[in-house]
Every structure is written in structure tokens, then in C-alpha cells.
């Protein structure tokens, strides 16, 4: 029985790349390869290739950052929600996003990256988050379009991740997916009510759908022939479907749902290709995607500044809580003595 410090802490060692592998490493690698080929799960204390660890740490922390930054466009509308009911729903949704960020930070931490390091990287602008959150939410209908399209795309992406080969990531995704479905439904309902409202309300709903449609399709990532890391991620059972497959599936769902809304998608090239069995859509502006990713989107600077501000404004709370904990621990020790 070893006295390991934490359940899900990574073992030291296995940081080698160029030198010859030791007996232990060979056994570890063989076990890793066997587990992947059996479609089993890798757990934090298992041996894993350095590239697998890095890929996951990057993907999971980016995913966590996206949840945290993703609170901003919606939090902005809490005080302007049109009714108490909508306000309560929006608050619950934003709280969920915070929770999802925390589940994912915990999962990323099991790979050996400390929590505070991830926060620092985000605030210093070293880490990425989903480019979708760099678009502005300009009307109340955007709360509907974000829920329906953005959360819809997120769900389409995330459901297969519940089966990701890395145990902690898959478990976090299961929890997230369970909670996420309310997000999409409440967005759909906002749009449905606006679409059945006054002509101006319907126009506002259509405008929001028009603006969020293409960015939500780009959430699935670059086209397959321009997505260099996808193949390896699929070989490792992290990713289960390619970007284009998921995007096509999503378009197929939206094209039906938009009819119920009585709205249209701003894309007259959508069709089902019988030969490939895939939904096709108009070409997307990948230059825009790259620009936003490179930090030149409409709200990049604002999102980062707000996140930084929140972190700095909260510093005294973290310090006070730590001081209080220390004081109580000291008092308890005194009493015991």
C-alpha cells in the first residue's frame, strides 16, 4: 500500500522523450496502448505519453476557460431580462457555466497543471478560449440565439466527449451534458416567444439567428483538411467524430428546428447530400475565424479585461478567506494544546 498524496494526482516520472525508455515506461506504454485499443479509459495515475497529457491539458483547460468567459455575454443581460422568470433562468444558466468551468478545471488539474497556473495563463492572455464568446450579445434575442445555436453546437460537440478516453474528462462531460440541455431549450423558448410576438420582436429574433448562425458552425473547428491535430485525437479516442461530421449533423438538426420557430437560417445552400449522407452548408469565412482566434474579434479585449478585473477585484476575498482559515486552524490548535 503506497501512501500517495492525492487520489487524482499525476505520478512523477514519465517525463522522458528522447532517451531510451525504462522497463517501467515500456510496461506503462504497453498498458496505455492496450487500454486505448480496448476502448477503455485512462485514469490520472496511469502512465500516458507526454503528448497525450499535453493535448488533454490544453483541450480541457481551454474548454474550462470557454465556460468561464462564456458567462460574460449572458451575465450582461441579467439586469435587463424582460421578466423575473427570465432573469431567474438566466442566472441559473450563468451559474451553471461557472460550475462547468470548475468541473473542467478539476479534470485538467489531474494532468498536473495547478489551478492557479491555468487562471494566470488565461488572464495573461496566454491561453485560448472558444472564439464564439468574442462576439457581442446586442439584443435580448441574442440570449435566445446563444442558447439555441451556441449551446446547441456545444452539446453536439460535447456528447461524444462523454466517451473521451481520459476518465476525468469524460466524467466532467457527463455532468455538463446533463445540465446543458436546459440551456438549449430555454434559448429555443426565448426565440419561439419572440417569433410569435410583434413583427418587431420577430425581426429581432431573426436578426439574432442571422448573426449567430455562422459563428456557431465555426465552433466545431476548422474543416477536416485543415485540422492537423484531429487525427491524433481520434486515434487516442479523445475525439470520436471529425469537425465536419459534427458540423454536418448539427446543420441537419437546426434546419428542422428553425421551421418550428417560424424563422429561417441565413444560408440558402443547405441541402442533404444523398451520396455522402452529409448535410452541406454555404462556405464559412475561415479568415474571420482566424482573426477572432488571433485576438482581433469584436470583443476579445473587453472579455479579457473583464475577466482580469473580476480576478483582481476578488483578490481580497481570497486573501481574507485564507487568513480566516489560518486563524481558525491556529485557535483550534491552541485549544487542543
Amino acid at each position, binding site marked *: 500500500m*503506497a501512501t500517495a498524496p492525492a487520489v487524482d494526482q499525476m505520478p512523477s516520472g514519465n517525463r522522458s522523450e528522447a532517451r531510451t525508455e525504462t522497463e517501467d515506461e515500456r510496461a506503462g506504454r504497453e498498458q496505455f496502448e492496450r487500454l486505448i485499443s480496448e476502448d477503455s479509459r485512462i485514469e490520472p495515475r496511469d502512465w500516458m505519453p507526454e503528448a497525450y497529457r499535453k493535448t488533454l491539458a490544453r483541450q480541457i483547460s481551454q474548454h474550462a476557460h470557454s465556460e468561464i468567459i462564456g458567462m460574460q455575454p449572458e451575465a450582461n443581460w441579467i439586469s435587463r431580462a424582460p421578466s423575473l422568470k427570465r432573469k431567474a433562468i438566466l442566472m441559473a444558466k450563468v451559474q451553471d457555466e461557472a460550475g462547468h468551468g470548475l468541473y473542467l478545471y478539476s479534470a485538467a488539474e489531474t494532468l498536473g497543471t495547478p489551478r492557479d497556473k491555468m487562471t494566470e495563463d488565461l488572464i*495573461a492572455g496566454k491561453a485560448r478560449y472558444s472564439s464564439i464568446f468574442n462576439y457581442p450579445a446586442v439584443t435580448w434575442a441574442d440570449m435566445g440565439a446563444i442558447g439555441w445555436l451556441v449551446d446547441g453546437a456545444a452539446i453536439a460537440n460535447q456528447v461524444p466527449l462523454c466517451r473521451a478516453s481520459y476518465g476525468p474528462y469524460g466524467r466532467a462531460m457527463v455532468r455538463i451534458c446533463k445540465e446543458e440541455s436546459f440551456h438549449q431549450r430555454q434559448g429555443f423558448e426565448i426565440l419561439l416567444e419572440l417569433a410569435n410576438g410583434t413583427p418587431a420582436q420577430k425581426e429581432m429574433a431573426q436578426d439574432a439567428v442571422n448573426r449567430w448562425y455562422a459563428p456557431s458552425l465555426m465552433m466545431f473547428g476548422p474543416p477536416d483538411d485543415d485540422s492537423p491535430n484531429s487525427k491524433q485525437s481520434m486515434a487516442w479516442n479523445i475525439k470520436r467524430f471529425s469537425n465536419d461530421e459534427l458540423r454536418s449533423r448539427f446543420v441537419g438538426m437546426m434546419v428542422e428546428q428553425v421551421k418550428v420557430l417560424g424563422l429561417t437560417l441565413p444560408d440558402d445552400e443547405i441541402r442533404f447530400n444523398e451520396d455522402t449522407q452529409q448535410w452541406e452548408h454555404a462556405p464559412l469565412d475561415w479568415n474571420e475565424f482566424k482573426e477572432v482566434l488571433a485576438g482581433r474579434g469584436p470583443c476579445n*479585449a473587453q472579455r*479579457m479585461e473583464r475577466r482580469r478585473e473580476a480576478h483582481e477585484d476578488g483578490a481580497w476575498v481570497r486573501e481574507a478567506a485564507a487568513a480566516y482559515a489560518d486563524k481558525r486552524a491556529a485557535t483550534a490548535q491552541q485549544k487542543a494544546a
Partner: protein
Amino acid sequence: MTGGSTTGDDGSTAPAPLAPEKRQPWPLWEVFVRSSRGLSHVHAGSLHAPDAEMAVRNARDLYTRRNEGVSLWVVPASSIITSDPDAKGQFFESPQGKDYRHATYYTKSDGVKHL
């Protein structure tokens, strides 16, 4: 402060380097949730908190937002003792080949009722 506007600007000024915060990282706690009376506490995840009391409160906010639990345990992650991950094979070897510990091993009684 950027104000309440969501339309945003695109000021491309790089942020000044962050002053390092003077504090130790909060310890890691493992969270266990009892979903209803009569069931065991099951591991739900982990979180960081400065002390046990805050850990329980954070666990409530993080892991029971939808009535998932009637009771919570938080345990400092550093207090959990685990089996040695490198000794998996040998450590769990004992039950191997001992099928007779399972009812399904006994097939001669197939068809006998209430057995």
C-alpha cells in the same frame, strides 16, 4: 471598467503583467454526495477551498444545484490513501482464477427452482 455595453471595443493594448498574489493555493478537497437516504456517498468531483467549512459550502453550490444530494462529505485530497497504481497487477491478483466465489460457477443446479 468597460461598462455595461456588450458591443465592445477592440482596444488592442496588451495587459500589464499581473502582480503576483501573495497566497498559498487553496487545498484540494474531494467531494462525496449521498443522492438519497439509503444510498452510499459517491465521489462527485473535487474543488479548492481554504477550509473545511468553505469546502462544504462550495460543494453544495457546485455539486448539488439540482437536488442531487441529501448529504455531503468533503475530504482533504491529501488525506486519501490509495493503492499503488504501479502495482495493479499483483495487488489485485488474489481473486483471479477463483471463479468459485461467484454463484455462476455452480452450473449443476441449473433448473432447480429457488436456488
